[in-house]
């Protein structure tokens, strides 16, 4: 279970974009968080994935409070999250061929990288694309690689922040299909943040609106 307890967070302590928000993702559950852009839902997603230290409140992973943020988070906690962001070009090192990009978390954690071809296949990337750098592939192909990277360490939770906002309908359905196949097989939980109600309601077990969360 992933719990956000009374989280306040932002980039300026005097004007936090997230105020006193609580949200729980139960084991194996898919929760959609729906809100307009700029509302603070991405900040909350970053807090949930231990990528942004909240000003107040707690993140609790299976009963254990988060013990740090970003690189200070204990490895076991940090690697229990896979995160995919909206803009693959901003979250991919432009110098790395896709195979290296997918392998990043494996290398960083001293794991063998021979899982890469299988990961690539899972997200529908063909072998000829793995040697290309980000500028040589489409947004959709790059986002597939980012999803493969997020799955590399077999996370207990996936956090998808507007993962498909830039993508066409077919690529969107394909990536959501990959996430759901992984969740079925691994039992991982999901926090999917977005602004498209139709998409989140189709994808997730339950969808909460940003307004309900913040007025509670």
């Amino acid at each position, binding site marked *: 279970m992933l719990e956000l307890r009374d989280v306040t967070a932002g980039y300026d302590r005097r004007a936090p974009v997230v105020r006193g928000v609580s949200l729980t993702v139960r084991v194996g559950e898919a929760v959609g968080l729906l809100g307009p852009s700029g509302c603070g839902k991405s900040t909350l997603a970053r807090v949930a994935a231990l990528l942004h230290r909240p000003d107040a409140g707690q993140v609790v992973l299976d009963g254990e409070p988060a013990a740090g943020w970003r690189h200070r988070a204990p490895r076991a906690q940090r690697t229990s999250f896979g995160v995919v962001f909206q803009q693959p070009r901003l979250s991919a090192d432009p110098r790395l061929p896709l195979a290296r990009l997918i392998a990043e978390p494996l290398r960083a954690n001293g794991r063998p990288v021979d899982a890469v071809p299988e990961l690539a296949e899972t997200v*529908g990337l063909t072998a000829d694309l793995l040697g290309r750098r980000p500028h040589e592939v489409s947004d959709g192909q790059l986002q597939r690689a980012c999803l493969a990277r997020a799955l590399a360490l077999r996370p207990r939770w996936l956090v998808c922040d507007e993962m498909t906002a*830039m*993508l*066409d*309908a*077919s690529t*969107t359905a394909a990536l959501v*299909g990959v996430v759901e196949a992984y969740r079925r097989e691994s039992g991982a939980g999901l926090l999917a943040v977005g602004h*498209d109600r139709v998409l989140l309601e189709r994808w997730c077990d339950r969808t909460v609106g940003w307004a309900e969360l913040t007025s509670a």
Partner: protein
Amino acid sequence: MTPPTEPTPGGTVLSVRGLCVRFEMRDGSYVRAVTDASFDLAAGECLALVGESGCGKSVLASALLGLLPANASVAGSAVLGDAGSGAGGLDLLAADERVLAREVRGRRVGLVPQSPVAHLTPVRTVRSHLDETVRALTGTSGPDGVRAAAGRAAFPEDHLDRHPHQLSGGLAQRAATALALVGDASLLLADEPTTGLDRDLVERTVDELRRHTGDHRALLLITHDLAAAGRIADRVAVMYAGRLVEITDAAAFFGAPGPRHPYARGLLNALPERDFAPVPGLPPELGALPEGCAFAPRCDRASEACATVPELTSGVACHHVAVARA
């Protein structure tokens, strides 16, 4: 949702025939970004050009504006006729850069860009952008022209002195639309105008574009957002691997009987409000297109006949469309 599609009263604004664009790569190979595209666009009409990213639809837009990189070569014609004004008959593909810069971009073709904030100069206010454009395109200057230009796109007057980064996504989009409308161009070209916008803002933006089209302009809406296209288009053109594979009435496409081309059907069915099932596989590389129908490796109806490229006949390019329709 979709406006009724009666035959439009206006004349032809744009007539594209056999448009091909290819890029020569450093190793001497070619990437065929657009192959043999033909379509007409009438005054008062909105044509949505849809397809996956990398299918060539943005290249087509750049070709119409003469904004292709130096390694591109173009064939075919794209004749811009100014219905009623007698100024028509300019082939955009044959025009030189001077004509395009002085007479076409902004004046006869208005561009609503993909990323309005990136399109505007960060250090200048909206007023200064509008002022410059009004002066350049209409020869007049002064606050009235700027106010009128802002008003046309419902850009609030009290935000005119803001810089692009101080605007919300919606207002930045309106500022860009205001700029595109200044020259009173007969063709509006909107290239992914709603990328990254929230759904209600997407709807507002495309509704405004539709409104600006009125009955004397034509709108070419290039988008990967099928819901946005379905909201305002009169006709839909589906592009796959650089070719138009279906071009049809929007009401028939989004309603009954639905798309006829297998790819178009797959794309529409991928929507979360429909089957939410992807078209299997990946689009082919434009530099290494398969022989015959480029969709064949992903098509469940492919047969031997598909080893030759299907012609676009009565709005669809598929050897088995009668089967596909059954």
